[in-house]
């Protein structure tokens, strides 16, 4: 549908006001809200995510696209609830204890939301106990941990252990951040490592729908 394609195009270019206008037009034309979400907003964010993974665009383009998507989401949020459109999964996300950095974590959050999943953002400096408690409380499928520093990434092991101790066997632990590697992920027994925010969103969706 041309209008949904226009929403996707405007989103990819970061044109927040255009996205809002086009989404409102789609609502007014009685376009099913699921189509606005999936074929307009999520489609556009998906293309940005792929370009990001392929190094065709970088963080600034992702930020302005996500800002545009959020503007559209705000308009359709009440309609999504009304139509009973469910999220595709729930992810508890945060930067680990001792680390106050949130740029990478925020990017992952944007990308995961762009996949139609619910994100519980615990912010920065999050203890392993807080990750586990939030996962239980929200019946989350995934705990996603971020760290920028070699001195804080060790906290991720604590999250893995606490989740095991709490009996959260069905909850998958994802790890990422500048110093984090697949080898580190394997060493601490986490379930998934993602090298970038778009891959993290792909992994989160795959883990939730597995």
């Amino acid at each position, binding site marked *: 549908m041309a209008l949904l394609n226009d929403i996707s195009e405007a989103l990819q270019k*970061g044109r927040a006001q255009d996205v809002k206008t086009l989404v409102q037009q789609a609502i007014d034309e009685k376009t099913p809200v699921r189509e606005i979400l999936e074929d307009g907003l999520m489609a556009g964010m998906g293309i940005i995510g792929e370009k*990001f993974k392929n190094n065709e665009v970088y*963080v600034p383009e992702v930020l302005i696209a996500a800002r545009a998507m959020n503007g559209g989401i705000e308009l359709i949020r009440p309609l999504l609830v009304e139509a009973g459109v469910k999220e595709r999964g729930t992810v508890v996300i945060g930067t680990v204890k001792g680390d*106050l950095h*949130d740029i990478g974590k*925020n990017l992952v959050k944007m990308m995961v939301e762009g996949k139609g999943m619910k994100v519980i953002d615990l912010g920065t*400096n999050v203890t392993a106990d807080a990750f586990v408690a939030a996962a239980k409380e929200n019946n989350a499928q995934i705990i996603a941990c971020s760290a920028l520093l*070699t001195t804080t990434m060790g906290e991720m092991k604590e999250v893995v252990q606490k989740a095991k101790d709490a009996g959260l066997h069905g909850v998958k632990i994802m790890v990422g*951040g500048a110093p984090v590697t697949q080898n580190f992920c394997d060493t601490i027994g986490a379930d998934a490592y993602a090298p970038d925010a778009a891959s993290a969103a792909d992994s989160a969706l795959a883990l939730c729908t597995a």
Partner: protein
Amino acid sequence: MTDRERFARQMRFQPVDRCFNMEFGYWAENYLEWSGFVENGVTTEAEANRFFNFDRIAVISGNTWMSPPFEERVVSESGNTRVMINRDGLYAEVPMDSHSTIPHYTKASIVTPDDWKREKAARFDASARERVVDVEELKKRHPADREYPLGVNCGSMIGKVRDMLTFEGLAYAAYDYPDMVEDMVETACVLVENFLDQVLPHFEFDFASGWEDICFKNGPIVTVEFFNSVVVPRYKRIRKKLEQNGVEIWYTDSDGDVRPILSGLLDGGINALFPFEVNSCTHPGELLDAHKGTLRIMGGFDKIQMIAGREQIDAYFETLVPYVKRGGFIPFCDHRCPPDVTYENYLYYLDRKQEMFGRLGADVVVGM
């Protein structure tokens, strides 16, 4: 061979007696935790450099940004964090215990063109008296017959703008107010040019330095298009001044994956990278091979291997051998050494560097 001669030759791919020996420094915790520092009263980077007998290298810097800066003050305290306004006007969340970390910036004092207009008038006057350089004093401190390399700091064209706007703020501003951001970059360039005009005629500099920190693990914090169209032309203006005064080597400090903007950096005249963080970019050899004879790298020893242990340190050193041999590469820890590198591992790393590259009769002949 003096330190100055060694640095100059090594950075020009010429043979030297041994590798220039330097490091980028340490986290604050290292001075409190490393036994060698504690037992020997080493509390600063300068003291550490003397303690380890590193080669001397110095840089002259000017007043090339906000003057005056914002007044630093505490806004609030909660739990184990404190919110402050820093000298860039950013609201920054920092840990109460002051352990080493990059602050978490939450908002900026400058967001709109009106904010910029007001603060530009108040803090960015190029003719301000406090920007005048005391050249005679600097000449006394760095005499013409010095035996160490002396650099001139060419500041930052976009990193300081990022510091003023926040990471996300810069991304949004470059999209919402591109003219404002370009004027910020232009202002940065004019202030650096003003400083260079004062010092370049009076010193025979061995290199130029700079700081940007404009790359993330997944690439630059500004679009490549913005970098090439707004930042690179300003680098070229500075490059012209440096060339007119015989300064050939120009490095900039940028962490993260610089590859998307590397051609722009080289085009703008920046021909060396520092301290080249491996894990968020790639092995230094990849870029040195791709830009053979053009690009230099200072740093590039993966700190993760220093944390891992002796075997990993040895293995990583082996990967650096061809590049040290070729010249244009001075290996050291790829950022300030963190405290999770043990003192024992660090000493082992320094010893191996010395054995392989750092003495007459070393395993590897440098610059051949």
